[in-house]
């Protein structure tokens, strides 16, 4: 069978005497380890080990899936986190130990599959094996006596040849591969269900295929993120991404030229169901894409429905508000004007906004809260009570000093380091807070000019309608995974192989005709399962029934 020697169907190993073991040379040891590695037992242990090794990745935050979680874990557990990190518990699925397990498993898999595949290839081209001498020793066996002198429908007496020929016809019709043997007795040997082994091999080979396709995809693909405010565009060049994670073998040549403009974004919130007021029910981004030919194509982007452009998939992953803010210096000159994407903190889109004004005479940094529908809590604090623009309000703390961005060290746009700065608006100084609604302007203390929360409503809007006063933004995930189709292909092979290998029985059956001393015939039927085959008994009984029918006999018991 060329299955591993500890496979259940393989013959039991001969007992070995420990004392007389010959000394193993290096080759002997290598062969020994290879035999161990490609045994069923080790494959099983590696599978179980892989399952266990995957567990910690769900207990600790993982850098790849949840980088912020890792940062939080480090600040919450400053002593244990570095130790855990040593054991790569924040990068479980790329860790040395996890990789070692699955690589060993796949080496074992290859070592197991290759000999089986060659063996199966030969089996596919060979005839069914010789009929065993003692059929009655097999698990499924039945025998019938045909008394001398019986004739078939045409009145001819039955002969071993005619009976065996009938058996061959029956087996052929049931898609058995058959072979006649004329030894001491005439018999037919038949085998079916080669597809079981084929399916099993397809399954295991497709697993290797998935691993390779995933590996290749990871090294030539990339993922990137980009925040786009309504009216703005994304251009597919590396510098345009907010963050970009290329595979090891990625080069910029892989980026195809296109441009994507966000025309508008709409979010729909539940208004009727009292249990779910304000819950989002739909996000839709209307976009126009421009390929190298410069022609614009309208596109609709929704959650669960990515766009396909230039070999990329583009996903709508998040959205929020980007209040437009203008800062003028004391001379009335504009030193900053932009829409600032704010990070949502809760379901009602209370958002944190970081505003950096590097071009002011003295650099300014601001930390703001934006509330789409601001409402005073009983504690006096503000909170947003609905994610749509009901009562948009921006509150700000302002710092003055060095933003720390001139040193060329890249800084997150979503964080403000206030170490080298002085608070000029905030709870610790005389001006506690600046609160703005769209269209309003406030004076910055200390002669730092003014700040305006711009109302971007279209000109025709009524004065008290603020529903379009603040621009929205979307955060896009932009991926290139060239082997994705291959992964899917192999996954389909996995299922197809699994179905064939698990539900097609592989069995051998034999029909033997023995001439008895009294001139009668004895018909023997026997079956042998190869692998799991709960229906063998029934199949042998069925064969006897169909054979007798073929002979013109009726079976009654």
């Amino acid at each position, binding site marked *: 069978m060329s299955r591993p020697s500890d496979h259940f169907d393989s013959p039991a190993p001969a007992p070995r005497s420990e004392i007389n073991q010959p000394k193993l040379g290096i080759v002997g040891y290598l062969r020994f380890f290879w035999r161990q590695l490609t045994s069923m037992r080790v*494959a099983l242990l590696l599978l179980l080990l892989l399952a266990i090794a995957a567990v910690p990745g*769900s207990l600790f935050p993982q850098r790849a*899936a*949840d980088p912020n979680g890792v940062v939080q874990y480090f600040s919450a557990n400053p002593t244990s986190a570095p130790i855990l990190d040593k054991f790569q518990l924040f990068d479980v699925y790329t860790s040395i130990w996890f990789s070692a397990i699955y690589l060993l498993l796949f080496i074992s898999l290859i070592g197991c599959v290759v000999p089986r595949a060659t063996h199966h290839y030969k089996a596919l081209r060979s005839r069914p094996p010789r009929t065993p001498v003692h059929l*009655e020793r097999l698990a499924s066996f039945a025998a019938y006596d045909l008394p001398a002198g019986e004739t078939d429908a045409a009145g001819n007496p039955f002969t071993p040849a005619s009976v065996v020929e009938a058996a061959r016809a029956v087996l052929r019709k049931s898609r058995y591969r058959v072979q006649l043997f004329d030894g001491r007795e005439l018999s037919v040997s038949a085998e079916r269900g080669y597809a079981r082994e084929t399916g099993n091999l397809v399954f295991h080979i497709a697993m290797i295929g998935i691993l390779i396709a995933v590996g290749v995809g990871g090294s030539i693909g990339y993922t990137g993120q980009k925040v786009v405010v309504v009216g703005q565009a994304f251009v597919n060049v590396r510098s345009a991404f907010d963050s970009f994670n290329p595979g090891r073998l990625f080069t910029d040549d892989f980026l195809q030229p296109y441009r994507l403009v966000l025309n508008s974004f709409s979010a729909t919130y539940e208004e009727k169901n009292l*249990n779910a007021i304000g819950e989002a029910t739909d996000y839709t981004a209307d976009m126009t894409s421009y390929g190298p030919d410069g022609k614009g194509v309208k596109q609709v982007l929704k959650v669960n429905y990515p766009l396909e452009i230039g070999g990329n998939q583009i996903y709508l*992953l998040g959205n929020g508000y980007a209040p437009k803010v203008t800062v003028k210096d004391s001379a009335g000159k504009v030193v900053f004007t932009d829409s600032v994407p704010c990070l949502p903190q809760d379901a009602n889109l209370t958002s944190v906004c970081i505003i950096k004004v590097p071009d002011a005479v003295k650099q300014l940094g601001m930390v703001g809260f934006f509330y789409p529908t601001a409402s005073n809590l009983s504690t006096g604090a503000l909170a947003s009570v609905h994610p749509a623009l009901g009562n948009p309000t921006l509150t700000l703390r302002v710092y003055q000093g060095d933003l720390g961005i001139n040193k060329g060290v890249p800084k997150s746009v979503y964080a403000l380091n206030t170490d080298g700065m002085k608070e000029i608006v905030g709870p610790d100084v005389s001006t506690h807070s600046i609160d703005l609604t769209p269209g309003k302007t406030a004076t910055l203390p200390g002669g730092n000019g003014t700040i305006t929360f711009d109302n971007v409503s279209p000109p025709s809007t009524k004065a008290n309608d603020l529903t379009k006063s603040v621009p929205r933004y979307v955060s896009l995930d932009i991926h290139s995974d060239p082997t994705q189709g291959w992964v899917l292909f192999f996954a*389909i092979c996995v299922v197809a192989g699994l*179905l064939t290998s698990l539900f097609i029985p592989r069995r051998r059956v034999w029909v033997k005709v023995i001439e008895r001393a009294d001139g009668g015939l004895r018909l023997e039927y026997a079956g042998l399962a190869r692998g799991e085959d709960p229906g063998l008994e029934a199949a042998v009984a069925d064969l006897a029934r169909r054979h*007798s029918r073929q002979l013109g006999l009726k079976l009654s018991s």
Partner: protein
Amino acid sequence: MTAILESYSQLAIYSAMAVYTLAFIAFTLDLAKRTSAVQVVAAVPAVRVGVLTRAGGTATLEREPEVAAPVVPPTPRSSPFERVAFSLTVVAWLLHVAGTVLRGVAAHRVPWANMFEFSLTASAIIVTVFIFVQLWQNLRFLGAYITGFALIVLGVGTVNFYVPVVPLPPALQSYWLVIHVFVATLGTAFFAIAGGLSIAQLMQVRREAGKFAAVKFMATLPTAERLENLAYRVVLVGFVFWTFTLIAGSIWAEHAWGRYWGWDTKEVWTFIIWTIFAGYIHARATRGWRGTRSAWLSLIGFGAVMFNFTIVNLFFKGLHSYSGL
């Protein structure tokens, strides 16, 4: 309208729970009753030989009278308790399905978008599979296990996970929700039944070794080897569904989050479960791992399925935050 349908749904579910309780009691009584009906297992005859004779115009194949009849595993006649218990289970199941469907109608979508609905649907499918699997094999001795299990799931679901009908968030608006979750539930149902069979197998092994003689009803159950074979075949079906769940989930993840695999906690656990059951299938083909060891693997696998559904949904952080709580 939604509120009215929802209250009907809840009424049906509570009624189903009441009837399941009765069914559970009847199944338990049936097991207790079986103690008295222990019978001897027929010996295996050596060789069967029939004879062909002419009868009228047609030659007829007849078995020689002195040869023993083919070995059929003894199927004890079902007790009245069992019949009542099974009928009650069917009644409870109808109410259960009605309640689950009404919940879906009230919500205008499939009733498996949060933990509460998932409890309703998953337990309904487990009982469905249990009822229909009887057409293939008489597994009614698992009735107490299955109805007890359904009761616990429904009880925890209605008491701890209940949420009123709310619309689907955009991330769940996908036909993959329908396919992926439904197939996962089907797989779970088969793993649950296999779990019951494996428990029975482990008990039977102990009884056959003479250690468990007190539990007499075990003698009326199939042999350990037969239970193992049944469990194996049920796991295979579950494993195929689970493989499909894994693939469908990846495709959905690709549509929703832009990557088909990201080791999100829920993905991790789905993978772990798949690997454990792949191990189980291997164990069955590995010398020295058949029998008790592989039965434990089946139970560990089902334990992981339950862990994935409860602890992972409720306490683990990840993208799959759809418990609705």
